[in-house]
């Protein structure tokens, strides 16, 4: 077994297939939002949202365009700070913490639009995702002091594991920008995984993907879910979410209007009238 970091242990189950499994031990209340509110000018993007996510849960977050889903993600990741309300993650009050501090606690996000670091290879892009694990500084890096070498090696291992998880390790020395969209999205997930997150926020990871790429993404998420990684998934494709999420929260006009299992959500009259509509509900059913 190869010990990496303090939160996760991962081990190669089958080296030939590059399959890696990591596990989290306990289950319980993990992320808790209370009365979370954020306005932009006169628009209340998120309005008194309260919800909680259990450890190891895969929560779906759906809602029409402009419902406040991405804003809610950014309130959790730290890109935005709430006007009001509290956020507790793994026993820590985080609503006023910087994004870097939240990343250190184990919150990681993948973006709706692809955000890569230019001029870097796939591997380098993914390694940047492991930054919250490092403690060495510029001088140590310049002189290649032992701590720097040790940490760099650790991040490289994590990055290689993450690339294997998403299945693009053979492109590790390619320039990230040269990859097709599907792989760039996979790269973003690998970068998030390289931080060995406790909570992974996925903002429409399937958007723009082809059928086979969607199936690969679904299988990756199932694999991560089986290994008890807590995830929140925003996705427009309701069919995709209901296939994988254990519970779904529905957001409309900045408020949670429903929450439950995929079956409960499908049948919720408020959800049908506010979001799904006849055509989509038919598709879901």
């Amino acid at each position, binding site marked *: 077994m190869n010990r990496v970091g303090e939160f996760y242990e991962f081990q190669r189950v089958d080296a030939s297939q590059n399959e890696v499994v990591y596990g989290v031990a306990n289950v319980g209340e993990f992320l808790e939002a209370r009365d979370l509110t954020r306005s932009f000018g006169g628009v209340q993007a998120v309005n008194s949202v309260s919800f909680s996510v259990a450890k190891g849960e895969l929560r779906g977050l759906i809602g029409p365009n402009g419902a406040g889903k991405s804003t809610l993600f950014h309130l959790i990741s730290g890109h935005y700070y709430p006007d009001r309300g509290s956020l507790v993650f793994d026993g820590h009050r985080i609503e006023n913490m910087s*994004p*870097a501090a939240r990343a250190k606690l184990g919150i990681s996000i993948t*973006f709706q639009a692809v955000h890569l670091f230019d*001029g*870097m290879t796939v591997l380098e892009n993914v390694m940047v*995702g492991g930054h919250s694990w490092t403690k060495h500084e510029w001088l140590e890096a310049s*002189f290649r002091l032992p701590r*720097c070498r040790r940490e760099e090696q650790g991040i490289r291992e994590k990055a290689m594991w993450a690339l294997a998880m998403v299945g693009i390790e053979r492109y590790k020395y390619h320039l990230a920008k040269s990859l097709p969209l599907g792989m760039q999205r996979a790269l973003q997930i690998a970068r998030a995984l390289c931080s060995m997150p406790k909570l992974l926020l996925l903002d429409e990871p399937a958007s723009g993907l082809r059928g086979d790429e969607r199936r690969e993404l679904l299988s990756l998420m199932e694999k991560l879910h089986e290994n008890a990684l807590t995830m929140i998934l925003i996705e427009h494709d309701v069919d995709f979410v209901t296939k994988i999420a254990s519970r779904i929260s529905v957001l409309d006009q900045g408020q949670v209007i429903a929450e439950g299992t995929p079956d409960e959500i499908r049948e919720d009259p408020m959800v049908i009238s506010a979001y799904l509509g006849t055509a989509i509900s038919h598709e879901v059913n």
Partner: protein
Amino acid sequence: MTAFVEYLLTGVSRGLVFSLLAMGFVLIYRVTRVVNFAQGAFAIFGGFITYSLLKAGIPHGVSELLAILAAGLIGLIFGIIAIGGDIPLLASLVITIGLSIFSEAIGMLIWGTTPITYSGLAGHDFVIFGAFIQRQYLIVVIASLVVFVAVLYGFGRTYFGKAMSACASNPYAARLSGINVKRMGLIAFTLGGALGGLAGVLITPLSPLTYNADISLGITGFAAAIVGGLTSPGLAVLGGLVFGIAEQFVAGYWSPSNETAVALALLIVLLLWQAKRVPAGGLE
């Protein structure tokens, strides 16, 4: 032939000093996207502080080292002022211009308006192809090359350098990847300050500095940095060498008063070339 060799070697060492300044520009720009127009001021502080420390009886070597550290500290303070708050990029750039003017005022108040110089490390001049070269030039070459290798290696080959570059490439993604982008920016300003300080420490024995020399040093350093699109440390070194050598040939074969004019003309040509090379919307 003797004159040619003398101009060339002098140009190389002066060029390396410009390269140090250029590298400071590149380093700060690559991490923060701020063009730090106070870069020349670091060189002035480096030279002036060394002068005061030597005058106070502190030996060579220690004085220079302390001055470089002080310039790094000044860089950090400038960084805190320029990017410490929630400041838009353009405002940060204007702040650096203000800091440059402020530094001139401080330099004039403390060290006066008389050009300042001090003797470099003791030692005899040496002769190459009949040209007498001061030993200080050799020190400039060695010190600069050591620093260049460290910076190029640190930026290009280490994980930490990649994380710093990520801050400028995509600050949003870098921040959400757990990087403290502001802290990285302050590290860049500190290193930029130390690089500028080293440039000042090295050049003051060769050419006396006045409180307002930061402008000409800053412009030449900026021009050299532009050669690499403000993002390539390697090309910035090359740019510095080109400017240093061109300056010496202009001064030697034409007139020293035309040095700055030629540097500015070269800068305009380079800016036009960069504008053609780089697509609208950004350098990367």
